[in-house]
């Protein structure tokens, strides 16, 4: 079945950001992202600067999807972590349920440290996200509930 939409409340968003901030400090990373497996960026933190975080999120999801496909071909469920090491910058991706934790780091850190710290917070993020996914959002008013055809048309004018 397709996943249900993600509704992220303000408080939950700030909680996620706080966890990412701690990971960033503990792992001496440049940037830390949380991305949905479908390629939607949920939160990012760090030296984002001119980094195109939307594209990075989409490509990270594509990367995990492709390697996940390879994993299944050889009889594995998925590859839970992926690392790409460059000359100066590197990326480490952990798969946490329907989330991807993406850490961008340079020579101020190391792959071992990033792996360790990512693993340490993955359970916490997983639990937080389970709560988000299973939350009763009946009290949240959809921003689209009262939208009119004119509102939609005005987006294209």
């Amino acid at each position, binding site marked *: 079945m*397709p996943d249900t939409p*993600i509704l992220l409340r303000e408080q939950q*968003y700030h909680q996620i950001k706080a966890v990412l901030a701690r990971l960033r400090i503990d792992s001496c990373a440049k940037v830390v992202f949380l991305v949905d497996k479908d390629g*939607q960026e949920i939160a990012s933190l760090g030296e984002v600067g001119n980094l195109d975080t939307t594209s990075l999120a*989409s490509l990270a999801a594509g990367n995990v999807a492709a390697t996940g*496909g390879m994993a299944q071909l050889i009889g594995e469920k998925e590859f839970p972590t992926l690392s790409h090491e460059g000359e100066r910058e590197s990326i480490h991706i952990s798969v946490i349920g329907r989330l991807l934790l993406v850490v961008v780091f340079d020579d101020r850190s190391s792959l071992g440290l990033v792996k360790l710290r990512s693993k340490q917070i993955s359970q916490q993020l997983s639990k937080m996200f389970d709560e988000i996914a299973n939350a009763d959002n009946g009290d949240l008013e959809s921003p*689209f509930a009262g939208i009119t055809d004119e*509102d*939609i048309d005005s987006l*294209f004018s």
Partner: protein
Amino acid sequence: MTFINYASREINCKIVYYGPGLCGKTTNLQYIFDSTAPQSKGKLISLATETDRTLFFDFMPLELGTVRGFKTRFHLYTVPGQVFYDASRKLILKGVDGVVFVADSQEERMDANIESLYNLEENLQSQGYDLMKIPYVLQLNKRDLTNIIRVEDLAAELRRKGEPVVEAVASTGTGVFDTLKAVAKQVLTELRKS
């Protein structure tokens, strides 16, 4: 899959352009990219072969504007059309909110259209979606060529559920934004229902 962030007041939706090889999916995205103001779009990412055939996907984020204080952003994807990239097509359909089927109007591509449409239905199903329920638009592309099938005949063969049918020449932009608007409207209408 729609993502609504109440903190940053953003809504993100995913639209996938599907269709047989060389039907003009990437051309649709390229035209949207070229005609959109820089502040409304991100980069156009193209994972293509050296001969410019889509290898994995094309991607561009497009910001349409604000609805009720929420920034409305569409993530546009294409799939690789060539038959042997089926595994990639399945992956790209994950989390889709709306689909555009780009049909090639040329007579000799009719079989490829039918095969690709069948493949779309099958791959949507494998991801838990039903073509009959998902926001969907049929675009008849390459209407400027000479060896094309009549619109009525194409629609009779390819139309599945009374979806909007848009005639297009993606290379010049004809019908490109009409197609996008038709699918985006359905996606937003679905959001209103939910």
